[in-house]
């Protein structure tokens, strides 16, 4: 997995609440058996018309947001399906961080597995960053995972919370399967115990 340490980038404002996984990556693109190449279809139905032409009003089609690395989003970003194609598409587009007041649980977890940092902040702070994002390429938001801060383009510093283990994996780009396999003894002990008391499992 790619590491995530620091980031200074343009943020795309997406104030709509409940941006769901079907919006992020519609199901027609779930037929791939690869993880790569989905960036071009990120937000496909919002981004392109029925003939496949770009919709100029959509934020990521505007010249100043084409190289966005951050999304500042409305409440409950990523609700809906478990499709990891959603973070794959986000990452493939070049976005490494999403900031919102809340995220859907499965999407939130999926981000961490793909080197994307989802940041939860209180509404006032998200509103402030949304205003920042509205400034386009004139405003860069900075993120420092090690010290858990987001800094607005005006220098306002905001602390955010992140699970220690997830932070550790992101900072070091760790594959958590290898980490879990180091605990194989505990898993085996558990299996032996359960086979004895709950033999039907």
């Amino acid at each position, binding site marked *: 997995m790619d590491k995530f340490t620091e980031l200074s980038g343009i943020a795309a404002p997406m*104030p*709509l*609440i*409940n941006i*769901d996984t*079907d*919006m992020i990556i*519609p*199901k*027609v693109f*779930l*037929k*791939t*058996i*690869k*993880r790569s190449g989905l960036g071009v279809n990120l937000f496909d*139905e919002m981004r392109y018309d*029925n003939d496949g032409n770009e919709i100029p009003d959509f934020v990521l089609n505007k010249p100043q947001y084409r190289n966005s690395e951050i999304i500042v989003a*409305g*409440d*409950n970003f990523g*609700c*809906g*399906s*478990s*499709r*990891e194609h959603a*973070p794959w598409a986000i990452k493939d587009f070049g976005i490494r961080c999403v900031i919102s007041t*809340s*995220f*859907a*649980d*499965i999407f939130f*977890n*999926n981000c961490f*597995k*793909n080197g994307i940092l989802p940041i939860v902040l209180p509404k006032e702070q998200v509103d402030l960053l949304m205003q920042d994002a509205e400034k386009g390429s004139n405003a860069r938001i900075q993120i420092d995972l090690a010290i858990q801060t987001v800094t607005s383009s005006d220098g306002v510093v905001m602390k955010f919370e992140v*699970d*220690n*283990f997830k932070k550790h994996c992101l900072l070091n780009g760790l594959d*958590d*399967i290898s980490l*879990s*396999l180091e*605990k*194989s003894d*505990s*898993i085996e*002990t*558990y*299996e032996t115990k*359960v086979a004895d008391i*709950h*033999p*039907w*499992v």
Partner: protein
Amino acid sequence: MTAPKTLYDKIWEAHVAHKSEDGTCLLYIDRHLVHEVTSPQAFEGLRMAGRKVRAPEKTIAVPDHNVPTTLDRAKGIDNEESRIQVEALDKNAKDFGVHYYPVSDVRQGIVHIVGPEQGWTLPGMTVVCGDSHTATHGAFGSLAHGIGTSEVEHVLATQTLIQKKSKNMKVEITGKLRPGVTAKDITLCVIGETGTAGGTGYVIEYCGEAIRDLSMEGRMTVCNMAIEGGARAGLIAPDETTYQYCNGRAHAPKGAKWDTAVAYWKTLFTDEGANFDKVVTIKGEDIAPVVTWGTSPEDVLPITAAVPSPNDFDGGKVDAVKRSLEYMGLQTGTQLSDIMIDTVFIGSCTNGRIEDLRAAAAILKGKKIKDGMRAMVVPGSGLVRAQAEEEGLADIFKEAGFEWRLAGCSMCLAMNPDQLAPGERCAATSNRNFEGRQGRGGRTHLMSPGMAAAAAITGKLTDVRELM
């Protein structure tokens, strides 16, 4: 004496295989369900790392999302990408030695219908699948939730998940339901009450008389949509209804093992005085047959209501509702029962079980669908289909003018050819009314099977109680 525990606390504690100092746990997974869309990258990951499936005997695979549901599907899948995904699952199931129900098997169907039907899902288990509607299995008092593909690979390799415990939420539905009100109305009504993020960070336990009175099919419908309320999982404590459903199923325990299992299952309830971090109580008698009007499952109203105004809402929801109404082509103030429907879809992991087909057939018996209506029933599994044929339900559907399809996810998410055209309006028994969910530009109204059947007859959203 130990502190009183919730059902979730008990199942959680029984599955912790390793706990780190910061509280991060390796939660052991008893059943891993796999389908063709979210697994190919995970199996490929195993191959690349030279890893095996740790517990193939606890891993069950079935293709469902992409499979055609037309009667000629034995000829194969036309869409090349869909065919490749299903073929990949065929190969992965064989290479890694997991249980498999291929398209040609009568037991094939939607993964969340096949698991319980075959007795894989049992009380007290942990069940995961790369699909958010895994919450369905919570109906058995098992801790069940969706995971992403990286986590699918993690479970395949280690039979565990890295987890931190969620908070406890209780949703109690008291008293009795009124006639015409079903499990679907309960679960939609709860989401209407709590919002799509109301359950975020929680595992919900559904309880109360109205929940107890539900069949296993109804309980699965309720838990299925726990995810639409944002919850990690939904649970219902097992009871006699649960044991009866499980008893005799292919992979349920038999003989002495059955007795030991039931004795254990009887300990799976929330202790008196256990703490819930959040409680929602709804009177069963206050729940009406409902439909959704917008593009979020929280956009729920009784069928007797009218399309709301964006001004009825606060904050970010105002703009979201404006967008929804535009997408849905609806005007504020229109009676929901005046909204014309083009298509009816009965099926999905939410409402594709035998009881759902019975409920729809009871409304349709001796009647015809409206002229020009496109209507299809897609049974949740080959066995549901066979049973419906045996009970004469299939004939009722066909005589009414419904297409009688083979099992799969079908138009719930429209990955196969069953899709809505832009602007086409559908009465659906599925679980999501998101923009484009049933096909780009398609408009979805969620409801119970009886309500969907009523809409097929009248050609508009209809109060099922008028046809009962």
